[in-house]
């Protein structure tokens, strides 16, 4: 059911399909794993205050702007940010700034698709009962996080190490054959969906996966809420909920009590989570919005993306992994466990908890299936900008664009599969540094160069909802100031401070518990190669093919 407009670009088939696909784009592992991990590492209730401020003052206005920018580019035949930036700012550098909208989703695809395949592998292994079982009698009241990690959780950590091939001290990873086969399944399933196209593939997946995702999450949330006090009368599931929701205005950093709104690290974590979770500052939202028609609404449907993602995060994601760990291990231990990383919480702590429960294998299967649906609907969103760029600017047919993506993706994912720290290098550039920078460039181009009144008028073409004037002033003045401040903090934390300490090239990797060696430099070299290649492709599309210079409305 592919529908082509006059310009030959596809369009979404139905509005609900578009809304679910956009929700799938935003909702991912960030909602169910990264959010509880970040919240636990940043003081629970103290984290939620800057989180909600970032959501209101940055994410909501940015989501509308990205939707409007995407539709503006799409009706002129462009689905990616290099051309969109150039359309809105006729300066030679604009198109090269837009490279971030290709570079970020490309790098995320390289590692996120591999991590997403783990969720499918785990759901199969759990359903078949091929996952460790621990005896409930090993868990006592009042155990410390370290004792729990060394007893109850140890078999699961060992299992994850074997699955990903990271159990020995080598710089190379040696994953199981099963791990690689499952990744191949995800790889070919994704490519099949991409060949079917926006309406026939992405929309089809969203219509099946998203309703199931919400149902699975609600079932698991109800199961967690009915845990009560499974181990001790001293602590239960409500202690985990209270840890997250009791407002805390002071947070402990390096042994000192700091007022939470003055703590740069909490702000950085909150803003980073908001970006990562909503898929903002990546070019992915613009790409999906570019398949809208000229008079399709962007305000109500844009708000629905934010609403879906926030509901999946603060209602569903917040109520599963962390409260379950708190019920069985106590809040203090759960906090330590969650702070060991989102994957430790999802792939080590959760399977252990399910093994204590009746029908544990079935519940574990549902948990990993939920994560798989969340990941898959985001993986296809990371593929689409690359395909759109090749179709729109290089005139490739969809099949050829998907073939090019397949080769590029297969090369890029090798660094995540085989090199220890490869995932961390990819995530550092595309998951934490890239999106806030991209968002700042977007908001300056849209609100200050293209013109705030012009973009506001553009946004309200065909609108089903009038955006409150508050967000106009917010997007023009408040959002860029917050973004610039966050980037300043980030630059201080990751460039200035490490440079002064002589640790510029080592600190972020060592913070992840890894060593910097030649293997890390190989991944960094590849990241630089990807960046230069994409810059060169933009130069070619502009100067030689001149396809990027099309600026007239094509329908």
């Amino acid at each position, binding site marked *: 059911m592919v529908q082509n407009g006059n310009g030959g670009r596809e369009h979404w088939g139905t509005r609900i399909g578009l*809304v679910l696909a956009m929700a799938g784009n935003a909702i991912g592992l960030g909602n169910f794993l990264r959010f509880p991990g970040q919240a636990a590492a940043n003081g629970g209730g103290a984290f939620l205050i800057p989180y909600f401020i970032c959501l209101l003052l940055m994410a909501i206005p940015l989501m509308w702007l990205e939707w409007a920018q995407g539709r503006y580019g799409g009706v002129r035949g462009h689905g990616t940010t290099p051309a969109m930036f150039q359309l809105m700012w006729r300066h030679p550098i604009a198109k090269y700034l837009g490279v971030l909208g290709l570079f970020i989703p490309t790098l995320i695809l390289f590692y996120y698709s591999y991590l997403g395949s783990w969720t499918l592998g785990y759901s199969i292994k759990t359903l078949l009962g091929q996952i460790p079982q621990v005896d409930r009698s090993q868990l006592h009241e009042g155990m410390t996080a370290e004792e729990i990690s060394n007893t109850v959780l140890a078999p699961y950590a060992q299992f994850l190490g074997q699955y990903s091939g990271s159990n020995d001290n080598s710089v190379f990873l040696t994953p199981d054959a099963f791990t690689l086969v499952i990744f191949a399944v995800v790889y070919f399933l994704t490519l099949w969906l991409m060949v079917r196209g926006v309406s026939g593939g992405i929309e089809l997946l969203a219509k099946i996966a998203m309703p199931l995702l919400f149902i699975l999450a609600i079932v698991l949330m109800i199961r967690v809420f009915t845990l009560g006090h499974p181990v001790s009368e001293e602590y239960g599931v409500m202690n985990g*909920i209270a840890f997250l929701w009791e407002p805390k205005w002071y947070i402990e950093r390096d042994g000192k009590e700091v007022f939470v709104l003055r703590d740069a690290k909490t702000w950085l974590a909150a803003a980073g989570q908001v970006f990562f979770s909503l898929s903002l500052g990546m070019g992915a939202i613009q790409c999906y919005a570019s398949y809208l028609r000229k008079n399709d609404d962007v305000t109500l*449907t844009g708000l629905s993306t934010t609403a*879906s993602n926030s509901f999946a995060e603060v209602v569903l994601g917040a109520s599963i992994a962390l409260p379950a760990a708190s019920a069985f291990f106590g809040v203090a231990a759960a906090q330590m466990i969650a702070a060991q990383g989102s994957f430790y919480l999802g792939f080590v702590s959760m399977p252990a908890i399910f093994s204590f429960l009746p029908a544990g294998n079935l519940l574990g299967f549902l948990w990993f299936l939920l994560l798989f649906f969340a990941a898959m609907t985001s993986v296809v969103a990371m593929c689409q900008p690359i395909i759109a760029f090749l179709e729109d600017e290089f005139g490739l047919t969809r099949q050829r664009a998907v073939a090019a993506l397949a080769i590029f993706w297969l090369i890029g994912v090798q660094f995540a599969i085989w090199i220890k720290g490869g995932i961390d290098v990819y995530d550092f550039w595309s998951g934490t540094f890239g999106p806030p920078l991209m968002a700042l460039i977007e908001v300056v181009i849209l609100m200050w160069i293209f013109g705030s009144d012009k973009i506001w008028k553009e946004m309200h073409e065909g609108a*089903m909802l009038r955006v409150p004037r508050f967000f106009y002033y917010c997007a023009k003045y408040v959002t860029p100031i917050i973004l610039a401040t966050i980037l300043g903090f980030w630059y201080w934390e990751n460039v200035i401070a490490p440079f002064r300490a002589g640790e510029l090239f080592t600190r972020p990797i060592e913070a992840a518990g890894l060593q910097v060696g030649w293997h890390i430099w190989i991944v960094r070299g590849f990241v630089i190669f990807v960046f230069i290649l994409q810059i060169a492709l933009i130069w070619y599309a502009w100067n030689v093919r001149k396809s990027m210079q099309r600026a007239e409305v094509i329908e």
Partner: protein
Amino acid sequence: MSWQGWIFMLSAWTFFTALIVYCYYRILFGGNQTA
């Protein structure tokens, strides 16, 4: 959980649940181009 915690949680839950119901209701039953 303290009363502040209950108020914080229930107001956030109510807000986001109402927002998602409002958006999806209007999109599914609101009338007015893609389909």
